[in-house]
């Protein structure tokens, strides 16, 4: 059940609570069941109205919703078992990216993704899902491990961006991202990347070079955060709402621009409302894509991966 309601979700909150109350009463008095049905209909209608007409800014808020499932939630819900691995074997363990060995429908895979953390303590431990170079190096280490044992790689993207800090720069944030971008192009196993929440610029792309790039319905993917964009263009980061519009950062936009291959639907009220349901959908979508990718040889996979990105760009000749 959601604990945090965004402004535009407020009308739903009352209905949820009312239904909840009625359910309790229905345990003793069966007459209430009719009322529950009525309320549920009303709720469904309200849901459709709200979720079918989301503005880009509202989607940005949903993508950042504090109750949205994170990588560890998906690992728990999508995988039969999961063995987390740590460290970049170089400098440190960076928990803003989590990853490890997992099984999905009996198939061995390597899962990695950004992890934001839910309460304050966790948020700090995971650095709000903003990796340092060691996070990217750990991710690459796990990808190479996958390659060595011929396991497909699944990445889940949900980050405000790579961490902007002194240490990050000292240890080569740019280089770490660049190397991941290059190395993901020659990884000899299938890669599927899913933007599950916030796809924040280069920090997201560093896990995002893949044979299949997917986005959850209410996730966003952007070259720059609406806040930073507004700060540059309007010199006022509070105009983020306006910047979300022209940036074309929703899943639909990314699909139209041919940047992503598929949009994975979310449950009626969004992923944050029903973790189990969204994990189930995502699991099925990932398995379908893995099945499809299995048909290709390594050479076919790599050359298709190159061509896929090589084609991106719109210009006049």
């Amino acid at each position, binding site marked *: 059940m959601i604990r945090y309601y965004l402004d535009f979700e407020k009308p739903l909150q009352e209905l949820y609570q009312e239904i909840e109350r009625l359910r309790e009463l229905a345990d003793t008095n069966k007459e209430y069941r009719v009322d529950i049905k009525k309320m549920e209909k009303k709720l469904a209608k309200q849901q459709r109205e709200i979720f079918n007409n989301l503005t880009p800014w509202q989607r940005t808020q949903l993508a950042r919703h504090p109750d949205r499932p994170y990588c560890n939630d998906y690992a728990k819900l999508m995988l039969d078992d999961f063995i987390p691995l740590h460290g970049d074997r170089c400098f440190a363990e960076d928990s803003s990216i989590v990853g490890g060995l997992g099984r999905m429908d009996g198939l061995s895979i390597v899962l990695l993704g950004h992890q934001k953390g839910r309460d304050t303590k966790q948020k700090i431990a995971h650095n709000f899902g903003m990796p340092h170079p060691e996070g990217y190096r750990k991710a690459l280490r796990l990808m190479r491990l996958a390659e060595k044992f011929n396991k497909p790689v699944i990445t889940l993207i949900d980050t405000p961006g*790579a961490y*902007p*800090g*002194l240490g*990050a*720069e*000292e*240890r*080569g*944030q*740019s*280089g770490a*991202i*660049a*190397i991941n*971008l*290059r190395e993901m*192009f*020659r990884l000899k196993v299938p890669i599927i990347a899913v933007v599950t929440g916030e796809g924040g*610029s*280069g920090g997201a*792309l*560093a896990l*995002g*070079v893949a044979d299949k790039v997917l986005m959850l319905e209410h996730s966003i*993917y*952007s*070259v*720059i955060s609406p806040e*930073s*964009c507004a700060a*540059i*263009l*309007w010199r006022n980061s509070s105009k983020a709402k306006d*910047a979300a519009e*022209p*940036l*074309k*950062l929703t899943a639909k*936009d*990314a699909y139209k*621009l041919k*940047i992503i291959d598929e949009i994975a639907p979310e449950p009626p009220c969004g992923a944050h409302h029903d973790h189990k349901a969204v994990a189930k959908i995502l699991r099925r979508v990932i398995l379908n894509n893995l099945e499809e990718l299995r048909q290709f040889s390594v050479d076919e996979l790599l050359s298709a991966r*190159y061509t896929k*990105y*090589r084609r*991106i*760009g*719109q*210009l*006049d*000749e």
Partner: protein
Amino acid sequence: MSWFRKKKFPKKNVADKRVNIPEGLWIKCNNCKEIIYKKEVERNCDICPKCNYHFRIGARKRLELIYDNGQYEEFDTHLRPKDPLGFKDVVKYRDRLRDYQERTGLWDALIRAAGTVDDYKIIICAFEFSFMGGSMASVVGEKLSRGMERAALEKVPFMSIASSGGARMQEGLISLMQMAKTSAATIKLEEAGVPFISLLTDPTMGGVSASFAMLGDIIIAEPKALIGFAGPRVIEQTRGQTLPEGFQRAEFLLEHGMIDMIVSRKELRNKLIGILNYFQNRLK
């Protein structure tokens, strides 16, 4: 091949007008604040004779300083940017583009050139910072990729000269994806056994530093050039960290092991000849 041929360039009138405005013969150095005779600076590769500060220079000037007799052939001059998002903030992206095109005489922020350096053939892609801060979007990414693919095909060394604030937000995700595209193209160079020399000049930030520019076999930076992922202002705001003197400057990167060397603009051509000589790709 027909796409090598030059097509018409955007008109240059605005730039001409600006040049015609009588300017002083003296300029103030951004670094030591010394007032210097402009011609003297120009003769000195746009370096302050007093403090060795490297003024920002355009792509054409850079290429002239490097290539034999300052001569080179230009490619992909017909590639023009579009407006895939229909982007508008205070100004429409289309209008912004037109404005920069008129000012710089370029269609977009990169020149792809080929020519010789001490008779070694080399393909160079140079960023034009004065075109929207040298930001990378469709055209820049495409020209870089073509340059690298061509270098791989012809087995000719490739050099990039970066001067960029990063990915261009007006083309949104398409700009972001140019990071992946150009990083991938470096693999072609590698497979062909062709050296990739990356020159980082002031500034090389964001999406450009976090992609192909940091993937050179040899990475050279200009003295004091600002190089990094996040801008210093963003870092200061994020955690209120006060940044040490010289943070994200070329010297800082050398100290932290991120680049191979710092080379003054005056020495660059000679240094490059030495490197090309090592890789022995002499035509004659």
